[in-house]
């Protein structure tokens, strides 16, 4: 009934300067430009964004701690992860990690870069360079496939959300209003008792 869906893009959101970009989910889009627009609509309805990155999901090589342990050797370079026509020139890869197993609010987030010729080498390099016993998920992707919002986009894409205070729960002063309703109710009871 539906038509073919567009490719998936992983979305990384930086909520404020100095924080790292963290993975918040995916959007479907026909290209990176529309993926950025969709990411803005889906993930930035509240005043909490400084920058967005989108990455085609197929360009990400991901492993969990369990997979690394069970696979022992990293076999990415002889699997489908190996891009067609891979030029074996060394290029820059972005590295993402999820560092906590238990807390809900721990994301796969950007930790830095490694240089490598293939995704498998990038993964091996990432595991060595960003060795962290608490890390449970590793992602790598070529830096060249990342589409980023720019400083010029901030005003049109992210600033309007900051003016929408009505999207914030505290805007409605519910606790205060219920206390007032309660004291009115109690006040009425007092008056009835006095009478």
């Amino acid at each position, binding site marked *: *009934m*539906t*038509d*073919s*869906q*567009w490719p*998936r893009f992983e979305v990384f959101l930086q909520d404020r300067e100095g924080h790292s970009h963290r993975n*918040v*989910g*995916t*959007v*479907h889009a*026909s*290209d*990176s430009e*529309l993926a950025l627009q969709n990411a803005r*609509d*889906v*993930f930035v*309805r*509240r005043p909490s964004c400084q920058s967005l990155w989108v990455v085609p999901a197929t360009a990400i090589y*991901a*492993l*969990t701690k*369990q*997979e690394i342990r*069970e*696979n*022992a050797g990293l076999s990415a370079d002889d699997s489908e992860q190996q891009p067609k026509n891979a030029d074996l020139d060394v290029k820059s890869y972005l590295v993402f990690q*999820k560092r906590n*197993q*238990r807390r*809900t*609010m*721990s*994301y796969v987030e950007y930790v830095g870069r490694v240089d490598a010729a293939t995704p498998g080498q990038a993964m091996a390099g990432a595991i060595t360079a960003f060795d962290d016993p608490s890390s*449970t*998920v590793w992602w790598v992707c070529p830096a060249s496939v990342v589409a980023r919002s720019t400083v010029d986009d901030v005003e049109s894409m992210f600033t309007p959300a900051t003016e*929408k205070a*009505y*999207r*914030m*729960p505290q*805007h*409605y*002063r*519910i606790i205060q*209003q*219920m206390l007032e*309703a*309660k004291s009115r*109710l109690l006040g009425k009871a007092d008056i009835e008792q006095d009478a």
Partner: protein
Amino acid sequence: MSETNQPETGNLQEFEARIKRGEKVEPGDWMPDTYRQQLIRMISQHAHSEIVGMLPEGAWITRAPTLQRKLVLIAKVQDEAGHGQYLYHAAETLGISRETMLDALLSGQAKYASVFNYPTLSWADIGVIGWLVDGAAIKNQTMLAQCSYGPYSRAMVRISAEEGFHMKQGKEMVIRYAQGTSKQKAQVQDAINRWWWPTLMMFGLPDAVSKHSDTLKRWGIKTRSNDTLRQEFVNEMVADLNTLGLSIPDPDLRYDQEMENWIHGPIDWDEFWRVVNGAGPCNAERLATRRKAHEEGQWVREAVAAYAHKHPPGSHDD
């Protein structure tokens, strides 16, 4: 893949040990097929509920009494679209495609929360849906934010935070109505009378008959039972509605001193099943509206696809 050589039971033991330690399961990790299937069922139904949930309130956007109320309602409905997207994404990480889920919704195969098959008859319904329906949803979502599957729990944290706004804008409307004219009070009371029972049904079947509960609990998907959440909701709502001078449409409602609980009367589960199975007041209308929206978006998808075909990645000459 080396792990397929391992005996299934070894994997299951390790999996259950991880759940017990409170670890999050991530895409790529080994998981029992039943765990995967149950999550796909729950998350996709939840996503469909968000998408269909836009319709009862969306019907009132053009009739909002002030510009401010209209902005709030538009923002709320936009959030619901976004929540549907977060959830479809979480389900996709388990190996089902978004297209398959959308097909299931549009063909009428998929289930979604039965509460959205009731009509919104007055503006007061918007306040009551926000407070009662979203309030009930938050109870469930706050629990699911703790669930063992990483992508679902993270989607739930985001959703719960945003639902806080939905619930509070609704509660604020009901407070204002309750302090208004006698006509306004009667209007909001009528809305409560119509939404109360469908809201209690949102928590799902009683624990004694809920067939999924045990496995869901053992694998850390649901950590609290349907009846526990429903009881907590009833206790909070009865107290607040009483404070506002509004009543609950339940002649059997009584306070149990010993347990410190408000005990509600019997829920009409026959009605629940009738509505789930398609015979609710608005089932046909909801589905027809979704299909129409999908068909009317066809030209946009075609235009985007044509553009993408003309401008493959890397061909931009700007």
